[in-house]
């Protein structure tokens, strides 16, 4: 790890070269702002002359999106150009079964920088939304989603009848996750900041899907130094678990009372929406960039996946992970045994399709 440590320090030094000691780096902020505002104004003039073309595009988009489910609360008409045609996974890209790909997000030119694609049970094709994050319930019929912003102050819950409830959260929150029984949704809550982004996590909130009741819990867990995805709370049986500043795993009950801690070098696998296995016995973790599995009873690393595999996207069942492998041909999400043997492919995606991929159990 010496190289990484040196690199961190050296990159900070390089960035510091931007300004001599004590000097504010770069041109004066007022000059930058003036130039940007003037340039943006010129762009608007040019854009106005192209309005008739843009209107035609929107009209087409409205027709397409009007045919999609839940339009009033959900997908809003907008030209689909920003995410590109390759972002929509085709029917052939996804296999159905007990566990299937139900939602994914891709980069897009939106306030959050992402849009979510979802499909509910029985739907063969993914629908593009303008939501920043979405998760489909384990039974496959309900959706929890943020609006266009991530983090957002509002959690939206759409029930199987496509009625949407809007739930106010105690602070900016991200990444809704369903409990395995499909009754509750967990979000991580952050400190609000004035300008852009969000602060450190302050705790989590659990929302009852049927009533919309929110239970907000303050459990900061000293997250300093963690990056956004590492800060998120995840379900762990009847409670939750989060990675702390030393990358150890810290478990809490739903009142925010710490229940136990397990030493870890890399924390929970950030790509797995549900890093804890269905039985609650194992957790997918990250150890020095390799995917590992920790036995939660002993805290021991019981599996390290081969170097070419990963990252891990969660659990298929208690004996199998869902692991991605990317090659020039694309990314394959395969049911993978704990000794690293890939089996059935659950989904394939173009190699450059970025974002979160969420797998959830179907109703049986």
């Amino acid at each position: 790890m010496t190289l990484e440590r040196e690199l961190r320090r050296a990159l900070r030094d390089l960035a510091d070269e931007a300004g001599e000691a004590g000097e504010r780096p770069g041109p004066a902020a007022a000059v930058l702002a003036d130039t940007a505002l003037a340039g943006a104004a010129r762009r608007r003039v040019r854009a106005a002359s192209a309005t008739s073309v843009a209107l035609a595009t929107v009209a087409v988009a409205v027709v397409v999106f009007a045919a999609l489910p839940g339009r009033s609360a959900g997908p809003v008409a907008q030209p689909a150009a920003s995410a590109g045609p390759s972002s929509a996974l085709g029917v052939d890209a996804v296999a159905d079964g007990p566990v299937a790909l139900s939602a994914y997000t891709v980069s897009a030119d939106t306030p959050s920088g992402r849009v979510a694609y979802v499909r509910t049970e029985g739907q063969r094709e993914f629908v593009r939304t303008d939501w920043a994050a979405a998760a489909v319930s384990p039974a496959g019929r309900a959706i929890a989603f943020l609006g266009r912003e991530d983090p957002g102050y509002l959690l939206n819950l759409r029930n199987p009848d496509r009625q949407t409830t809007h739930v106010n959260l105690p602070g900016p929150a991200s990444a809704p996750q369903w409990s395995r029984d499909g009754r509750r949704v967990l979000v991580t809550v952050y400190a609000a900041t004035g300008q852009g982004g969000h602060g450190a996590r302050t705790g989590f909130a659990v929302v009852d899907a049927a009533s919309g009741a929110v239970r907000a819990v303050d459990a900061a867990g000293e997250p300093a130094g963690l990056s956004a995805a590492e800060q998120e709370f995840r379900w762990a049986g009847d409670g939750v678990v989060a990675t702390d500043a030393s990358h150890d795993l810290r478990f809490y009950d739903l009142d925010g009372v710490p229940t136990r801690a397990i030493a870890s070098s890399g924390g929970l696998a950030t790509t797995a929406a549900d890093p804890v296995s269905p039985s609650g016995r194992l957790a997918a973790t990250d150890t020095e960039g390799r995917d590992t599995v920790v036995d939660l009873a002993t805290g021991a690393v019981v599996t390290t996946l081969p170097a070419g595999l990963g990252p891990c996207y969660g659990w298929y069942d208690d004996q199998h992970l869902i692991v991605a492998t990317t090659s020039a041909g694309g990314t394959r999400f395969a049911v993978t045994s704990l000794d690293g043997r890939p089996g059935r492919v659950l989904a394939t995606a173009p190699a450059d399709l970025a974002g979160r991929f969420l797998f959830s159990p179907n109703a049986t």
Partner: protein
Amino acid sequence: MRAAEEAAFREFVAARSAALFRTAHLLTGDRHRAEDLVQNALLKTAARWRHIREPDAYVRRVMYREQVNVWRRRRILTEWSSAEVPDVSAADHSHDTDTRVVIRAAFDRLAPRQRAVLALRYFEDLPESRVADVLGVSIGTVRSTTHRALAKLRQIAPELELAGAEAGVGGVSR
């Protein structure tokens, strides 16, 4: 843009431009190109200001992607010129070797996407999933790029690891 929005934009620039400029300088290694990068990204941000809720994340995404694309266009030129960069690791074995100079030279010899990934991972301290998000590539790509970039750095500047091992934490930069 309404007066209130314009004021908010100016406030954002005043608060964040120094940090943005640091990132831009790291990415470009050149004061003028760093200014251009920040200015262009702010222009795009101003044009969409009303719709942006996370301006800092937005402007960074623009900067990183723009830089990778610029690099992509300049690739042939870059590879040509980097072939002429003297082999830094062989040039100076004295204990006075400035780690910063070594890293700068080594960093400049990396491919565009490699530089961006290392900056996001080790300067911005983002996890792989967010790096993938910023650059608009898959996590698999981020992983393989990081791996290859670190391997290349080890190859170009083997003394980096030695320097760290001998001097311990905090003992190298002067």
